[in-house]
């Protein structure tokens, strides 16, 4: 069990970073971005293609991929903040469903539907606890998720940039009237979360099932984790991601429970939503 749980921690770190991205997006630009991990997947696939077919060194290809992921996300953000500036969160998010579909099928066309020959960026064990080996990937992703969450928190609470972002998310009209540039800021948030998700997927993908669909569907466990923090709290999103990854890893140790493992994110989502919405009754306040 412990071995399984620790093995699942790498995935947990990945969920945590994606959950942090989803939470930032939902808080700051009013979108539940279903294409969050698909953007990362696409960036990584381009990186693999560059390294295999163009012969770029792995690190250079990875950097290009990460930048591309950020760029794609920024483009999507620009489209949404241009055409759907006033729309509700539901409509804005529904657009990302279409984009998710678009990115998966584009990757099928460009790269085929087989898992990609990833070159691991990180490899090998970091240390071992009671004979259970913890890999470098695990250490890096977990540390990364915590650092990113802390960093975002500091950025939002301590800097004037963060203040503008919060103003924009809580009182968009007032903020715009005060001269805060809404669209560039929104696009910047999109770009940043795109960069982060591509980065973390580049690190973890080599050691995961890494076909396009699996990578894109990482958004499901990630949103389960983000829901723990109610799409608002970054710390709980990180905790949620790590715990969910460990739970899945632990369950994976038992063969008879493998179906449970698939349904775990779904059950967590349903449970959390029912709990968090237990008092909400009506669609509008009045």
């Amino acid at each position, binding site marked *: 069990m412990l071995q399984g749980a620790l093995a699942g921690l790498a995935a947990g770190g990945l969920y945590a970073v994606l959950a942090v991205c989803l939470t930032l997006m939902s808080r700051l630009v009013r979108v539940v971005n279903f294409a969050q991990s698909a953007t990362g997947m696409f960036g990584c696939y381009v990186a693999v293609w560059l390294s295999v077919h163009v012969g770029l060194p792995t690190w250079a290809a990875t950097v290009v991929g990460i930048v591309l992921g950020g760029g794609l996300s920024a483009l999507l953000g620009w*489209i949404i903040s241009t055409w759907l500036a006033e729309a509700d969160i539901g409509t804005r998010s529904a657009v990302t469903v279409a984009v998710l579909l678009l990115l998966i099928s584009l990757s099928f066309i460009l790269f085929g539907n087989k898992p990609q020959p990833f070159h691991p960026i990180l490899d090998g064990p970091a240390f071992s606890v009671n004979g259970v080996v913890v890999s470098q990937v695990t250490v890096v992703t977990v540390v990364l998720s915590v650092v990113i969450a802390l960093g975002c928190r500091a950025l939002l609470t301590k800097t004037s940039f963060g203040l503008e972002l919060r103003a924009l998310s809580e009182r968009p009209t007032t903020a715009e009237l005060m001269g805060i540039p809404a669209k560039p800021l929104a696009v910047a948030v999109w770009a940043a979360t795109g960069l982060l998700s591509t980065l973390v997927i580049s690190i973890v993908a080599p050691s995961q099932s890494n076909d396009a669909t699996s990578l894109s569907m990482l958004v499901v466990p990630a949103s389960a984790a983000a829901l723990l923090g109610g799409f608002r709290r970054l710390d709980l999103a990180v905790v949620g991601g790590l715990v969910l990854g460990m739970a899945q890893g632990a369950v994976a140790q038992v063969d008879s429970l493998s179906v449970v493992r*698939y349904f775990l994110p779904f059950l967590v989502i349903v449970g959390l*939503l029912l709990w968090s919405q237990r008092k909400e009754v009506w669609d509008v306040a009045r």
Partner: protein
Amino acid sequence: MSRAETGPLTRFGVPLVVAGAAIVVGYLFSVGLDGYFVYLGMSAIVAGIALLGLGVVTGSAGMVSLCQLTFAAVGAWVVSYLNRAGAPGGFLVWLLCGGIAAGLVGVLVGLPALRLRGINLAVVTLGLAAAADLTLVQIQFPGTVDGVSVERPEAFSDDRGYFWLGTMVLTACCLLVHFLRRTRWGSGWQAVAFSERGTAAAGASVRTSKLSAFAVSAALGGVAGGLLTGQVGLAFPASFTAMQSLALYVLAIMSGAHLIDMAIFGAVLWVAVPELLKRWGVPQDWGFVVFGLLGTHALATGGNLGTAVRELWRRRSKGAASIELSAPPSDVELPTPGEPVLVVRDLSVSFGEVKALSHVDISVPSNGVLGVIGPNGAGKSTLVDILSGFLPQATGSVELDGLKLNGLSPTRRARAGLRRTFQQDRVPAGLTVGSYVRFVARRRLSTAEITDALEFFGCPPARTPLRRVDVGARRLVEVVGHLLAKPKVLLLDEPAAGLPHEEHVALGLRLRQVPARFGVSVLLIEHDLDLVRSVCDTITVLDFGQVLASGPQAEVLANPEVLKAYMGETELL
């Protein structure tokens, strides 16, 4: 212009004739088309049924469902299982079982969805689709490992025959959806998509509306899956991936699948786009890219193909419908108000530190109209919200004709005979005036009854689609619906807002006749004092959440306290 709705012959006859024609066309296609096209056509039929289902849940009821093919997989699984087990009844019975099983799964998934809306439901259904995807690959469909393929009915065993059977199943599903949408359930779907509060205020259960939409949608998905199994013989997980569910959702949004013809058109696209790409030598995966792009566009602009085509058609027909109020018929004798029918004692509610209402007593006389006035923020709308059950945290007692209403949900209160209207537009634009009035009234109404009531309030005819009715008139249609429900008391929250000022008094004269004509007592909240003067014998004045004065009209309006509270409000001066 006649205000009547269409007769039963048109209502039932036309769809049945169209259905008959569709089956004939299906037969002609099945014998006339090239074998390959028959096969493609079958795929389109399967997609069409799945899209019809999505149209119900996403189009009519306004929910996001990303797991339609998971329901299809349930249908396929049941059909495969029954086939392998050699269950009695044959394919069509199995198909029905598959549909029912998928419907039940839909109810299970829908249960948490009752309190979830919009984007949360999307997360839930995507989670289910992803989990089902992985699970299906692991457990496989019954019979696929040992190659027991599903037996088609004998009369339709070849591909052409099966296509014709498919046409009939599709037609049956279309008829089902068509007629369901005309029932209370269907109106409920439209209402719940537009406003949950409005639905509950009409005495319909928000829960039933959402759950029935989800169940019907899932059942149709199940039938589609079962039919697909019969087409290919052995079901494989690759036919039911989350990815394809996403694509179907996008297609449903893009084509506007809540319209039956558009669901079928969407199904044709579903098959034709990849097929054309194949012929042009383009990889078929571009099909989903095309759907993705068009879907992004449709979602970003908020339009869809079906509505666009209909708009084009409508532009040639008439413009917006509004109300025509002249002097009302004065042929009724006004009854004298009797004993109180609605008694409210010691009503209080606070939002945090703010006391919105404190210790309010109000009583509405039977056969009478009580006016409640007060400056902005006095707590008038809060009062209506509490009485109709939308603010359960309020304290105090509410008694309707001796029945204690405390603790009852808005739906129960509406059914018990306490109705309300809203200040905001809560009338779903997807229905006609007549079907909306029937939905709100919750009782059997004759066409003449509806026509009379609509005419009395100068509303557009029953068969006018509500989307062509302007907002002021919509709110009067809402009033008519609630009056026809024959409640004991109707709470009207600023019914004249949205009407031109010169029509306020004309409306007031009609409201005055409401107790006599409809047997309904009224609590009227209004800003316009001219209107209140013309309607109400007794008035209660609220200010800062407290009753400032209460009693006969002349006495209350002469009260210096009331004048002071209203200082600056030009309406009174």
